[in-house]
């Protein structure tokens, strides 16, 4: 990331938001595309900026997520978040995935400085925490996660974060 040369008074927060990892996942999203034999899927729409993602899951009979893919278009934050989501949940059980949903959305939304999720190691997903300084962008970072919950709950309608 070539942010060193930025000529902005308070560029640090921007650098936190657009970390190299985020830009990398935004440019080259992992598991991008349709999943032919998905058992679950859900759409996420953020009408504010037109972000629109579709998440596909292949969950086996033992409730383990065998595969996850997404397609759609969105800003760097929402695409990177979706990409990181697929990396995180493949191989997890449904229950574990939902626990991740809760931890990630809580941390990104409230920061949760003292709550039960403050100590959770989010791993790579910590790269998303830059959004906390950008309240208007929190919904971008959580969009794919809401789609995940919606897919696992098999909600029929598209989910919106507005």
């Amino acid at each position: 990331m070539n942010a060193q040369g930025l000529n902005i008074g308070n560029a640090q927060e921007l650098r936190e938001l657009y970390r190299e990892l985020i830009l990398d996942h935004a440019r080259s999203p992992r598991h991008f595309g349709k999943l032919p034999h998905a058992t679950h899927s859900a759409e996420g729409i953020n009408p504010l900026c037109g972000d629109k993602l579709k998440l596909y899951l292949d969950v086996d009979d033992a409730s383990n997520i065998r595969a996850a893919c997404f397609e759609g278009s969105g800003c760097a934050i929402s695409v990177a978040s979706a990409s990181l989501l697929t990396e995180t949940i493949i191989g997890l059980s449904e229950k574990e995935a939902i626990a991740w949903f809760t931890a990630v959305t809580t941390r990104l939304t409230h920061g949760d400085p003292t709550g039960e999720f403050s100590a959770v190691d989010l791993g790579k997903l910590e790269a998303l925490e830059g959004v906390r300084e950008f309240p208007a962008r929190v919904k971008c970072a959580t969009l794919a996660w809401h789609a995940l919950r919606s897919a696992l709950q098999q909600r029929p309608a598209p989910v919106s974060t507005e």
Partner: protein
Amino acid sequence: MTQPQQDLQDTIAVSDYRQDFPLLQQEVNGHPLVYLDSAASAQQPASVMDAVAQYERTDHANVHRGVHSLSHRATDAYEQARDKLRAFINAESRSEIVLTSGTTESINLVAQSYCRPRIGSGDRILITHLEHHSNIVPWQLVCEQTGAELLVAPMDSRGQLVLEKLYELMTDKVKILAIGHVSNALGTIHPLREIIARAHALGIPVLVDGAQGVPHMAIDVQDLDCDFYAFSGHKMFGPTGTGVLYARECLLETMPPYQGGGDMILEVSFEGTTYNDLPYKFEAGTPNIAGVIGMGAAVDYLQSVGLANIAEHEQQLLDYMTRRLTEIDGIRLIGTAANKASIQSFMLDDIHSHDLGTILDHQGVAIRTGHHCAMPVMDYFGIPGTARASLALYNNADDVDRLVDALEQAKKLFA
């Protein structure tokens, strides 16, 4: 950083009007605010705020219903605002000025009270590909309710209406043409006088969505010869929650009321109700009194500056902005019609507009990003959204330079 050309800078470098607007005197994220989002909602001059505050502090009461002094003062101020608005758009009569909560309500009123009772399956409603959702969805609803069909006149890749196609679609099945004055996504100004003349030759009434017309140019509804003209207070430096539906008196006379309630009646009994005269028949309930008074003050302000001066200032600034943006490597201008007003949409490299918006905001530059409530326009270009800079009389060349600098920083961040 490129320097603006000296000659241009002289005329548009400083807008004297900026100081009239209290909100613009602030820093955002540590930078003096550059507000380039007036097409979404404009800021208010102090004179509008003062008029509203004065009303709330000394004259407030309900209107049309009271004999006491406050009620009389409130009614006078409210009705004077109607007179100002009538003069502002040169309507023939004050009966033709229906006060609404905004453009959206104005258009819904026409869809429900004018169209719904008189159309059915086989009939058509004609709009264009450039419309704002507020000039699409009300017609979709009325089509659903009646079985009528919605026709859409196409645009070209510069964002201009394809007039021949529009005219081909005008047949005697078309019961109304609803068309914007200025596209809020692309800035295109449509050749309304010609279009309206063609429609009228075929007996098709025309509604103009003037939300983006009113603040930028002098409007004369009699000269335009439109049948309906809808606009919002908050886009012309007035308060939110206010708007106008101009409608020809002879059409209003044939329309049933839109909403029922106080003020829109002469007599109510359970056997039957007599509606009030125009325009009151279409104004049910306690109106947005303070807001309308503010809208009247906004008219005063606009007229004190002069609509011709505003149009000229904005046109020069738009030219300057277009030129400066074009100089940026990787920019793609969306909406390049020959005849445009105050608005430029664009994309930069493959940076998503939402990310651009955040990066610019961090530098104190407020632009709008996304679909601008005009998703069909985005679909046409195959893009999820654009970044949009929109100008008002309080903007100046420095604002444009700050925009360009901020875009350069965004390029660096995403490089």
